[in-house]
């Protein structure tokens, strides 16, 4: 298939599937909390609605950043789709996507001029603790498989079995990232409701639509990468079941866990990351990991 057509199709799938999964996530949280919850399609409808709403610009914004940042956000997750599901390229590109996402989160908050956005921007720096375990997990995948290329990691797993059995603690570190990035997460200190919507607070209309679009794609890409690098070659049904199961698990966790204060959030992430990091090193040096 033509590369551009493939990219377009994969981006549409990522957006729609990600939106439905985030809608499911919200539904699960509601059911756990004994509320009826919105329809599963609601997140998608919200995203589409924002594209047709009037776009306002607060007086305090730094316009070039305020506008540009939303398009950059959408663009980096499209790059995530291209590097992951389309090209099966290097994990380092995806790590780069996460790193830029952190910068975008930071600038989105600061460019708004809102005190809520600015506080969220400061917290975005603190929550870089999320990306450290991700980098460690990628390093362990490299140590075991000898490659950063997603296609080659899939081939490795088709011969040696899924990496979740070999380096489960590295998978746990990656799973921490998924929990952190899920809506209403205990670690989502940048979107704490005390900050209204955090770095997104002052973005309305079309710009907010792009943010929702990016969130949906981000959720899909994160789940896709996790399933691909730890659960080996999967077919479409395998991906679908895996994504739904992870969405269920994060939904249960987020519905039953209050948000941490920033220092507790960072310390918990670093502690779990450190335990998993040294645990995996011990496993490698004691020969548990072949």
């Amino acid at each position, binding site marked *: 298939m033509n590369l551009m057509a493939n990219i377009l*199709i994969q981006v549409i799938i990522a957006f729609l599937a990600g939106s439905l999964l985030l809608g499911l996530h919200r539904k699960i949280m509601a059911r756990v909390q004994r509320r009826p919850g919105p329809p599963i*399609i609601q997140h998608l409808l919200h995203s589409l609605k924002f594209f047709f709403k009037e776009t306002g610009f607060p007086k305090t914004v730094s316009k070039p950043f305020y506008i540009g940042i939303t398009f950059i956000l959408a663009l980096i997750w499209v790059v995530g789709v291209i590097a992951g599901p389309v090209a099966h390229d290097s994990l380092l590109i995806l790590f780069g996507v996460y790193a830029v996402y952190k910068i975008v989160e930071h600038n989105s908050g600061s460019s708004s001029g809102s005190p809520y956005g600015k506080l969220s921007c400061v917290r975005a720096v603190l929550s870089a603790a999320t990306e450290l375990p991700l980098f460690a997990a990628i390093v362990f995948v490299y140590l075991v498989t000898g490659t950063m290329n997603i296609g080659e990691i899939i081939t490795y797993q088709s011969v040696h079995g899924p990496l979740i059995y070999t380096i489960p603690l590295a998978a746990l570190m990656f799973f921490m990232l998924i929990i952190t990035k899920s809506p209403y997460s205990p670690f989502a200190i940048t979107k704490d409701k005390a900050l209204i919507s955090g770095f997104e607070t002052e973005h309305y209309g079309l710009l907010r639509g792009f943010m929702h679009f990016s969130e949906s794609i981000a959720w899909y890409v994160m789940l896709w990468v996790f399933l691909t690098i730890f659960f080996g070659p999967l077919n479409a049904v395998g991906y679908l079941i895996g994504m739904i199961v992870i969405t269920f698990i994060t939904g249960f966790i987020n519905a039953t866990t209050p948000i941490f204060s920033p220092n507790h959030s960072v310390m918990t992430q670093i502690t779990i990351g450190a335990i998993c990091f040294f645990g995996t090193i011990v496993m490698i040096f004691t020969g548990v990991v072949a």
Partner: protein
Amino acid sequence: MLDYMIYIIAFVVGSILGLLYSYKQHGEAFVAVTDFNTVAAIISIVGWVLAFNAGNVILSGIGFLLAGFIMGERPGYGRKESAVGLIIAIVVYFLMHWTV
């Protein structure tokens, strides 16, 4: 991947139509419906069975549209019917692919 895109678009369109239809039918405040809607169940069964077992993009697409129509109904409606349709479709799938 084009077929998966068609399936997911069909499911989304079905869900939106189902939501609009059920809000038109039931405008009242939320009630946890305990009744079993036989017509909706038949649509759901046909939809899910076609979606999983048709082996044809167009028929599967229509299946996902019908399945989405029932599953996408407003909260409180279409839950049991969707569950029945999904279970029957999975059973049919295993029966058709069962090899001893």
